[in-house]
């Protein structure tokens, strides 16, 4: 857990991909010309300087390069960004620096140089160890590429590795999933993120489902896959610490914990979201406008949009909704100190109802979801909205 809730994270969005995956709903553009990476890195450097000029000096606990595909950046570009951040922001000495990577075109040398540049946690988008499933998802890599990438990462010096896996893929059987999970566990990563495939209707896969060309699994099957994952990973010594996340004890992803503990964060890059002073704000998603804004320094970034401006109540409700995603839950005494709200009073009736139904537990001052409620957590969470 994050001890200092005042500390912050920095998220850097790299909105380029070689090709868009069929299920992806994040902002990314196909990379036509590698020149763009250089331009974009220069833009980011400008934004870092600009943001720093009105930063309040609170410590930065984590950096996360997400995408898109951050592993399209060269080690030099990565180093340039991290150096810039170090120069302008108060980074903790033991800062966690994560980079997402696709298991393709990342050899041992590349990863070694990234590690040297300051990346100390690698998140690999494996998704599946089954080539049929990978093709269905529209991934460019094969299961073999994944195996190689994991070996290379370790050889390059990474000792904090996450693997992303997707379950609930059309046609996936229980055996298929156990196979994927077992392969992942054999690789002995420090962290595993298991995501249920949830398609937005406007994604290519979402459209195929709408047109009945693809059939999603039944709720019951998805639930079974989730249960199997929890059991299998517990047996292998992974700590289930958030609805979709598992880690070796002490290797929980600090950056994501910042989100779920409702800490503030800075989002840099096109389409990146920041959360500061009860406001969620998104930088412009238009790459041209973003780079233009960087060139027009200073002042240009603020042509993004405010996603949400919260009042005091909304602010702490937000913290409840996020906090309950973690299996440890919410420390109610800390919560009261932080927001001045006594949850046991504020939600007395609801908590009683949920306790009686066995959907939550309150133990040692922590309010948390009962494990049986993880997979129907929305049913619990929405009740906390005023």
């Amino acid at each position, binding site marked *: 857990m994050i001890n200092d809730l005042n500390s912050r994270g920095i998220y850097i*969005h790299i909105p380029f991909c070689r090709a868009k995956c069929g299920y992806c709903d994040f902002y990314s553009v196909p990379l036509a010309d590698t020149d763009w990476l250089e331009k974009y890195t220069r833009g980011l450097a400008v934004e870092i300087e600009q943001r720093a000029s009105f930063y309040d000096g609170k410590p930065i606990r984590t950096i996360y390069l997400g995408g898109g595909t951050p592993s399209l950046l060269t080690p030099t570009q990565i180093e340039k960004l991290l150096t810039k951040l170090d120069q302008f922001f108060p980074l903790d000495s033991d800062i966690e620096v994560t980079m997402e990577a696709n298991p393709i075109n990342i050899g041992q040398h590349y990863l070694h140089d990234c590690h040297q540049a300051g990346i100390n946690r690698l998140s690999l988008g494996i998704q599946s160890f089954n080539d049929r499933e990978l093709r269905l998802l529209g991934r460019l890599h094969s299961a073999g590429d994944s195996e190689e990438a994991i070996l290379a990462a370790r050889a390059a010096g990474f000792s904090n590795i996450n693997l992303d896996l997707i379950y609930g893929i059309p046609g996936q059987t229980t055996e298929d999933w156990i196979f994927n999970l077992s392969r992942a566990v054999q690789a002995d990563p420090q962290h595993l993120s298991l995501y*249920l495939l949830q398609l937005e209707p406007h994604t290519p896969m979402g459209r195929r489902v709408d047109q009945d060309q693809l059939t999603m699994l039944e709720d019951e099957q998805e639930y079974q896959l989730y249960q199997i994952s929890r059991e299998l990973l517990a047996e292998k010594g992974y700590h289930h610490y958030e609805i979709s996340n598992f880690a070796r004890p002490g290797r929980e992803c600090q950056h994501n914990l910042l*989100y779920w503990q409702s800490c503030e964060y800075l989002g840099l890059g096109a389409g990146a979201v920041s959360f500061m002073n009860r406001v969620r704000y998104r930088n412009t998603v238009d790459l041209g406008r973003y780079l233009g804004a960087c060139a027009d320094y200073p002042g240009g970034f603020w042509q993004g949009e405010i996603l*949400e401006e919260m009042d005091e109540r909304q602010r702490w409700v937000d913290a409840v909704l996020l906090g309950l995603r973690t299996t440890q839950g919410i420390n109610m005494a800390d919560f009261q100190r932080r927001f001045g709200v006594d949850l046991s009073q504020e939600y007395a009736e609801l908590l009683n109802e949920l306790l009686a*139904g066995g959907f939550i537990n309150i133990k040692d001052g922590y309010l948390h979801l009962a494990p049986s409620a993880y997979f129907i957590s*929305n049913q619990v969470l929405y*009740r906390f909205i005023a």
Partner: protein
Amino acid sequence: MQSQIRNFSIIAHIDHGKSTLADRLMQFTGALSDREMRDQFLDKMDLEREKGITIKLQPVRLNYRAADGQDYVINLIDTPGHVDFSYEVSRSLAACEGALLVVDASQGIEAQTLANVYLAMDLNLEIVGAVNKIDLPGAEPDKVKQEMEDVLGLDQNDIISMSAKLGIGIEEVLEAIVKYIPAPQGDEEAPLQALIFDSYFDSYKGAICYFRVVSGQLRKGDIIRMISSGKEFEVSELGVISPYMKEVEVLKAGEVGYLAAGIKNVSDTKVGDTITCADRPSTEPLPGYQEVKPMVYCGLYPLENNDYERLRDALDRLKLNDASLFYEPETSNALGFGFRCGFLGLLHLEIIKERLEREYDLSLLATAPSVIYKIMLTDGSEMNVANPTHWPDTPKIDQVLEPFVKASIMVPNDYVGSVMELCQDKRGVFINMEYLSTQRVMITYKLPLAEILYDFFDALKSRTRGYASLDYELSGYEPADLVKLDILLNGEVVDALSMIVHSERAYHRARNVTEKLRRIIPRQMYEVAIQASIGTKIIARESVKAMRKDVLAKCYGGDITRKKKLLEKQKEGKKRMKQIGRVEVPKDAFLTVLQVGDD
């Protein structure tokens, strides 16, 4: 001069062109200029105009110079075209000397129309026949005229062919009214007797009555007395409708008009009541007055509990305009505070509910319609039950009586078997079958009113491709083997879902309703047990399995706002649900459940 007055009603089935005909008559006689004309001018409610059905037109006075060169005053008094309002039909007819029967040239006579014609004949009204919509492709005017002759004894040579839409035959209609319908013959010097055939509430003038002076005369400023209640009022406004309200000084025997007298409540101006003058009263009321009693009851509950007072206000206001609406407060364990409301029939119920929702912006939950059962208790006493919740425990019941109707169904002979099967299914007892022509048959059944309430009419229409028409009248109470069927959610009786059913149908109905509820109630966090019971005995059971999946797989910095919106949406969705114990039930469940027939 009474000899120059003609008072007539239009008898027509819904959709047979009554409103359009009235429009044409007004245009032809110059009551309205073309500029003032808008379709269905006399339809009073937006709801009527929108649904394209006319429950009842406003009365209107037309001035007509006939072919004989003389000027006539022709009063059109409408009859409601729906079985719910048959008492009002009889009072409108009683205010006339003749009736214009309008039959659709492709549809032929319908059961309701026939019933009203017989009513008119009983009142010795002269009947003028007309076949409308002769311009339409499917029109068979000669066949329909033949049918009118066979069934009603009209001379088919006297029946007018017309198309109200195209204005064909309008003059013939007016001429026939002048020629065949007798002039009124009331004694202008006798004490006042005026028949109220309609009334409505005006927020400035109070209750406005429409009436026909039968004898004597009425002047502005007169003190009038309502014979049924003895209440007296001073006439502040007297007039005729042509088709705008126009004040007059006096209305004499034979004339039709309206009055306002500072009457605060339409229940003081009951349809069928007799108005007389206080200083020289008639001792005799006109014949045929009845207190109108609701036939159908249901519970109306606001979806939002704090709308209860608004619902009360809205009902109070509607009641001002509709003396036949009945309501009293009731409470339901499941639904909270609401009202038990009584209606003349299902259409009346539907209209009131829709007006409450539309004009008063209320979101309502209606429970199953119920009839009034008479229950003889073992202790010798008797009780009336309009709400299944009040049904006594079985050991206390000696006998149950339920209301029956005599239903007349008119149908092409191809569908006789199918209609009889339906009636049999609905516990009907066959009375009679009569061929009206070689193709059309009138089938008469005795049926429990309660069976007609659910989906009888829909079932009838669908089995006969829409060709059947139905009329019914209450025929009295008879013993029946009825039981109360309770519905339980997670072991708790939901009082608002209780229903009275015939004991032989109870199992079937129980399975049907529980099955339907299983489909309507969405999966929730808990398994929901749905049971049906008679007394303590469970006779059907279903369950809604607990929800398995409702999770946001990913929730990270960039996307939290959007994910939160999804949760907020879920929160909103909950508002369309009624929480009963731990179970969330969609609000339309209450009615949908009852729309299951026995099929």
